[in-house]
């Protein structure tokens, strides 16, 4: 049951009590988010129904295609900055031809998935949190439950599947555009020919760089969706609550993306 009664607790009497309550509430929220994730994964078995397929495509369009513009610009300039900064440093040693490797490996391993994750957390995660939050406030979630329609299957699962598919694809796209941006800086600012840049880029990059990057993006997609949906379902206090939930969703996603990103890197390298 996602529709919950309003909770009221007596004010804490001292700092220790307040800290204890904060820790307990955080643990409870984390547990609820994990349960939500498990339920959403269980409901993936309904992803092949006609209605779910339609909804997944709509969500893929909303999360992926609509974010394409901003992702392109961010990826392009990230690659350009990477190439410029690395190139300036390497030029001291006449090694600017090696910017290809630096840009390729950075984009595939880290910058591609991170940039994509952060943009999607801000653009898509906030949108999901606001939409579900508004639905919670206007009793649409309660209405779904009363109609015997599981909100996890109806709302969370299609968004989760869409993000599981789109985030790795967009991370790959971000990496390609970043590498392209780096190449353009190489040609125009550092005098590195395109062929040399690409030869160097492909020489040291490994398949592992690609699949670890895609794995990261896949996990970031899950984090963004579950955090946003959880915040949405927890929304109280009307329009103010929707704003707070949206803000909290973006902050939590950012933090979890950075923390989980570190541990995935640590695991594979």
């Amino acid at each position: 049951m996602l529709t919950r009664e309003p909770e009221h607790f007596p004010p804490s009497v001292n700092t220790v009590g307040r800290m204890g309550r904060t820790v307990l509430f955080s643990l409870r929220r984390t547990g609820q988010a994990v349960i939500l994730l498990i339920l959403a994964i269980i409901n993936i078995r309904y992803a092949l129904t006609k209605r779910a397929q339609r909804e997944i495509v709509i969500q893929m369009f909303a999360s992926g295609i609509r974010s394409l513009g901003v992702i392109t610009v961010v990826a392009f300039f990230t690659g350009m900055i990477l190439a410029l900064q690395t190139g300036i440093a390497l030029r001291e040693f006449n090694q600017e031809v090696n910017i290809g490797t630096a840009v390729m490996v950075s984009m595939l391993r880290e910058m591609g998935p991170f940039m994509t994750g952060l943009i999607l957390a801000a653009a898509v995660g906030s949108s999901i949190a606001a939409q579900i939050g508004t639905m919670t406030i206007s009793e649409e979630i309660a209405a779904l439950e009363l109609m015997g329609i599981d909100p996890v299957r109806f709302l969370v699962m299609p968004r989760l599947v869409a993000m599981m598919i789109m985030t790795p694809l967009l991370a790959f796209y971000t990496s390609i555009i970043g590498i392209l941006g780096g190449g353009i800086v190489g040609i125009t600012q550092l005098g590195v020919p395109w062929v040399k840049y690409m030869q160097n880029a492909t020489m040291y990059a490994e398949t592992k760089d690609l699949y670890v990057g895609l794995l990261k993006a896949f996990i970031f997609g899950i984090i963004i969706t579950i955090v946003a949906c959880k915040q949405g379902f927890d929304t109280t206090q009307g329009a103010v609550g929707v704003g707070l939930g949206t803000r909290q969703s973006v902050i939590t996603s950012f933090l979890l993306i950075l923390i989980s990103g570190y541990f995935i890197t640590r695991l594979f390298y």
Partner: protein
Amino acid sequence: MNAVSFQNVSKTLGGKVILNDVSFDIKKGDVFVIVGPSGAGKSVSLKHMVRLMTPDKGNVMVGNDNVSTAAGNELTLIRRKFGYLFQGGALLAWMTIAENVALPLREHTDLDDCTIMDKVHDTLKMVGLENDTEKLPANISGGMIKRAGLARAIIESPEIILYDEPTSGLDPVTSRHIDKLIVSLRAEMNGTSIVVTHDLHSALSIGTRIAMLYHGDIVELATPEDFINSTDQEVKEFLAAQYITRRGAWERK
């Protein structure tokens, strides 16, 4: 047999007693109206019937089922007996009126699209929205939203229809139209209706029995005729505040 029974139900929210050992029975076929001032516990009572809220003490029975302790499939089956008209309609904003009304059928039945749309059209005709099927909730009036919400609530012919403030925020003409709809639906569907409102004109015209909640207690439970003649001070004040005299007529003093 009772459609719904409250058995010594108590509920406290945020330290405030909302329901205090409340007991009443709603008979099958009744149009049972719960009236009372804001914050008296009317909507809370309604939410207990479908377990959107759980009592601190006591039980809420739906037929022979205890909804207060039901969970999982049992709760889903009990809830399927109800149609619920939410105060704000609770229509899904991205779906058209027709899609909203069709949703329960699409989710619970294997009917083909043509049959579903025929049924949706018939139901929307009952509430006077047959010409607005393709409009989005954002593009229709408050009264139309309530009627669309009502159409969605009744599309599966539930045994009990719950109305949460069906006339609040509506002009008097639309309010009376909604009242007529409630009465005609009861006649057509032969079910039980439970209405929460603070609109006494509406309560007196549609109700077969009226209960007044005041500070968590039922202070009056009577037929409309007896309700008007109640000697209870709170009921008298409530009637007087809406310019309703003992004859049931509107009278401004």
